[in-house]
């Protein structure tokens, strides 16, 4: 536990001083408020810059809060997710490759504590960013499109946090297993790219961690998929497996730390 706290302090200081806790939430806030604003002002924007012919008529669809939150979610799940994954995919591998880890690995540390400290800070970063993004989105959604039920919003947010925990666990496990280049590629293939695959051919199955955030958004319309509980359980199971793999491989690969 002491080792965990010591390493957590170090991880947190690094993330804090490199301003990750500033720019990552800012990015998510920008992504979150983009959709409610652009959709609301679409007519004006088109009128101002669209160079539309005289008498051109445009019918804008009437958007509901759920549509807007769903659009924001897909922003987080594309750009936001790629940035988050890319930021943490080197967390373990880079330290091994440049030799910074050597000075820690020669000490009697527990690799469980080492992995957990990284996972805790990465998850904290992801969750703070996700919450900030949704808060921004919610603010303009309620202002411009109508109110959202508090309980349903919290359920959606909670579901998204589970997804973030899954993302950070899988990404760090990749980082523990491979060098930075491979870990980055693999994590991006598994997570943002996996989401894309799931959205293209995912209609053939219902149980998939990649569907979790979509199920979360459905809470806003009053009820979610019947597969929600099973999907959460599956996601948590995969997350725990990723954590175990990550711990195992950070220990096994310790000898590859550059001296």
């Amino acid at each position, binding site marked *: 536990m002491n080792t965990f706290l010591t390493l957590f302090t*170090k991880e947190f200081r*690094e993330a804090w001083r490199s301003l990750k806790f500033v720019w990552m939430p800012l990015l998510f806030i920008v992504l979150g408020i983009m959709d409610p604003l652009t959709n609301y002002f679409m007519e004006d924007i088109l009128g101002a810059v669209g160079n539309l012919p005289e008498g051109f008529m445009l019918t804008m669809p009437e958007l509901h809060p759920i549509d807007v939150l769903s659009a924001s979610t897909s922003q987080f799940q594309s750009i936001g997710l790629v940035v988050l994954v890319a930021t943490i995919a080197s967390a373990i591998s880079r330290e091994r490759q440049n*030799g910074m880890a050597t*000075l820690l690995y*020669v000490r009697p540390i527990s690799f469980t504590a080492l992995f957990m400290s990284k996972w805790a800070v990465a998850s904290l970063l992801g969750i703070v960013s996700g919450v900030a993004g949704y808060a921004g989105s919610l603010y303009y959604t309620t202002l411009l499109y109508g109110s959202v039920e508090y309980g349903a919003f919290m359920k959606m947010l909670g579901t998204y946090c589970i997804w973030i925990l899954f993302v950070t666990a899988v990404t760090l496990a990749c980082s523990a297993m491979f060098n930075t280049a491979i870990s980055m590629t693999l994590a991006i293939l598994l997570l943002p790219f996996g989401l894309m695959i799931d959205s293209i051919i995912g209609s053939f199955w219902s149980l998939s961690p990649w569907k979790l955030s979509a199920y979360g958004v459905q809470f806003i319309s009053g009820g979610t998929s019947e597969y929600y509980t099973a999907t959460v359980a599956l996601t948590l199971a995969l997350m725990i497996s990723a954590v175990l793999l990550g711990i195992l491989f950070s220990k096994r690969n*310790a*000898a590859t730390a550059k*001296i």
Partner: protein
Amino acid sequence: MITVSNLTKTFGAQTVVSNVSFTLETNTATALIGPNGAGKTTTLSMLTGLLAPTSGSIEIAGVKDIRREIGFLPQYPQFYPWLTALEFTEMAAKLSGVPASAAKKEAERVLTFVGLEEAMKKKTVTFSGGMKQRLGMAQAIVHKPKLLLLDEPVSALDPVGRREIMNLLKELQQQTTILYSTHILNDAEEMTDQLLFLRKGELVESGSLTEVRTKFESPRYRIEFATQEDALQFASQSQLSATVTGSSVYVEIIEERPTMQQLLERLVASKFAVTKVERVTASLEEIFMKVAGQ
């Protein structure tokens, strides 16, 4: 006392360290020397516990988890750029089992000892090579290890930095057992109780500097003559392996060849004007070349 027995490391078919055994007495300094690729760093990484040996064992008398009792300074220590020297050293202390309440104090103590008291609140990203080496030293000794392992501690430093680190090591030698690798033989000559020669992964020679010297040194003498002509003439007459530079002759006496006594008798008989006769001690470098070239 630290006992290393039959340490072996193979990577695939390649044997990098083969059957290396030695003991380190408490509070002594041992130099691990050998040409590049001899297995010095691999041996040190096995001693740190970072690399598991293929076979063999490392024991510190009376210690269970040897990682607690080891301080390690790699050749090019890398630090977390966002942390200050004090934060890093304090973390190192805690991770090595120094109680949290004492860690900061201990960190300040060793940083002052290595001469970083002015810079301890600065981020390590601003540190020069010499400062990094000193910080590396501080993190290696903050938990008062029984065994201090240093990989080429001064090779990358300028003469001033080298002197500072050598002085620190000499002070540390009073309190802890030191094993360091080096290919700079002057440094090994300056501070060593025991020499370990590695070549192609094997321990080819060991012992104190004097022991190794006696073993590898054939007695050599330098004779200075009044003129160069005398020197050249003596060299050709003497039937010894002799090299002439200026007006001095280096004579090497190999086994059954004449002793000092006989050499002097010959000199007297030759009637040349001799100005100086001295015995030359081989430098570690010459011994090194001999051992490495065996």
